[in-house]
């Protein structure tokens, strides 16, 4: 074991970790931007609900490698392919949690909003989505951790970030980069999850005060 490889490549590792973070963050963000309207549509139009949940579920069952290969003709060996593929995977969790979050809003609260003279959009933005936030955030946390681990798979199309370390180590029969990649991925997932807990805490002050 030549552990000195790690300090020798510290700068490179830091850059790769950042790249990894960026890919995962963009994918989850894009997923959320798609999932929120899809979830809202599914709740508003019950006929759509089955289709939306079904399709996001089916997409999730496509093996990840196969999905990237399927995307190649469209976007090539690019960063976009990596982000697009990962975004598709986040949908299953994010859409489902958006739907469940919105469904968990107590009916009498929705009714009160209507009776106060709130229109549909105002009710959605200022009452329903805030109240659905804890459930949506739970989905965002799962999707984030999952995506951080999945980024490595995009290594096969050259955009695996920390995942490139696995390929590199494997090809050279050299374990240190592999170990470094695993540890950094785990740490990143942990830190991201903690950060999201903090975000949720800040966004939902009403859930944390006792009597």
């Amino acid at each position: 074991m030549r552990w000195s490889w790690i300090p020798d490549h510290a700068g490179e590792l830091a850059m790769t970790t950042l790249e990894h973070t960026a890919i995962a963050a963009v994918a989850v963000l894009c997923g959320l931007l798609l999932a929120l309207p899809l979830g809202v549509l599914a709740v508003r139009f019950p006929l759509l609900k089955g289709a939306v949940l079904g399709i996001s579920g089916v997409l999730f069952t496509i093996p990840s490698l196969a999905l990237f290969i399927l995307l190649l003709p469209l976007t090539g060996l690019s960063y976009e392919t990596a982000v697009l593929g990962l975004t598709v995977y986040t949908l299953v969790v994010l859409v489902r949690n958006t739907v469940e979050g919105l469904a968990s809003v107590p009916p009498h609260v929705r009714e009160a909003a209507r009776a106060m003279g709130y229109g549909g959009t105002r009710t959605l933005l200022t009452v329903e989505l805030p109240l659905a936030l804890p459930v949506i955030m739970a989905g965002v946390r799962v999707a984030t951790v999952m995506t951080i681990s999945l980024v490595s798979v995009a290594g096969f199309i050259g955009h695996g970030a920390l995942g490139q370390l696995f390929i590199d180590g494997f090809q050279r029969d050299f374990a240190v980069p592999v170990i470094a990649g695993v540890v950094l991925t785990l740490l990143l997932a942990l830190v991201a999850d903690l950060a999201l807990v903090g975000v949720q805490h800040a966004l939902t002050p009403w859930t944390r005060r006792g009597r």
Partner: protein
Amino acid sequence: MISFEAVNKKFADGTTAVRELDMEIPEGQLTVLVGSSGCGKTTTLRMINRMIDATSGQVRVDGRDVRDVNASTLRRNIGYVIQQSGLFPHRTVADNIATVPRLLGWDRKRVRDRVVELLDTVGLARDLGGKYPHQLSGGQQQRVGVARALAADPPVLLMDEPFGAVDPVVRTLLQDELLRLQDELHKTIVFVTHDIDEAVKLGDRIAIFKTGGHLVQFSTPAELLAHPADDFVADFLGSERGLKLLSLTSLADVPVEPVTTVTVSTPVAEARRAGDGWVLLVTDDHRPRGWLHVDHLPADGVLADAEPIVAAGLTASASLLTALDATVSSPVGLAVRVDDDGRVVGVSSHQRINERAARFRAQVLVP
């Protein structure tokens, strides 16, 4: 004034919730819609602010057909209180109360002042404004619900079983406060309940609905209790109609008679000389404690050590029903009368109260 003209409501599943309803709800009064579940009372209420639109007929508020008004605009001018309070769980009490004023675009200071004023009006401490609804008791939440409905000072207030989910003690308290508020505010209140006692207590007028959406009788509580329109109404009013009737009139016209009182600081020996039977024990500031028999006093000491048969004081505004209850619970058949500060002014006998009850009955029972 709110009026219904030949209003029908049929739901998509074919059930008729309201049938050919004609009703005029008087301005500035509290009208109670009462009936068993499925009788259309809530549907009727919700047609006023267009939470439900009538299938046919016209609902008018202040002479205007509600369907000619934008639903959201209409609702901002009609207060609405529902059973589980319907407060927004993610907003503080103050923000909940501020809901409609903010929709109406009031400036910050005006909203803030109004919230403080309303917390006072509904009897909540000002520092509760910063709490979230789940940090409050059921009764407090319901008060916030009322404050929120009153926020923009709407002339009409709709209340859908607002006190249905709180315990009986709190419910009585909230009912009393609603009556006190209404004394000051004179809103046109439409109140839905399935509890006939609540209806009799609160209503200036009561509308009784029967399953299938029929309005069976619409009259004052006294008229209703004295002359139920049919067997359905009579059944709904229950078996103690005569007694309920007595809850509608007060002790004010019943004469106050003198009574022998002894204070808690009186020595026992002196008390024995005060009378030869039952005496009324009062505190040093003349509030009633209860009835004592001179033969059953402690051996010595002062009367503070004695254990009287507890008697509560009744003001002139207490109902005859409460007064009769007091005489029945008293060993001497007397109701203790107090002034508005709670000090004993005398007693009223079972007999005098009955005489007054008979006169009242004669007044309302004559068609």
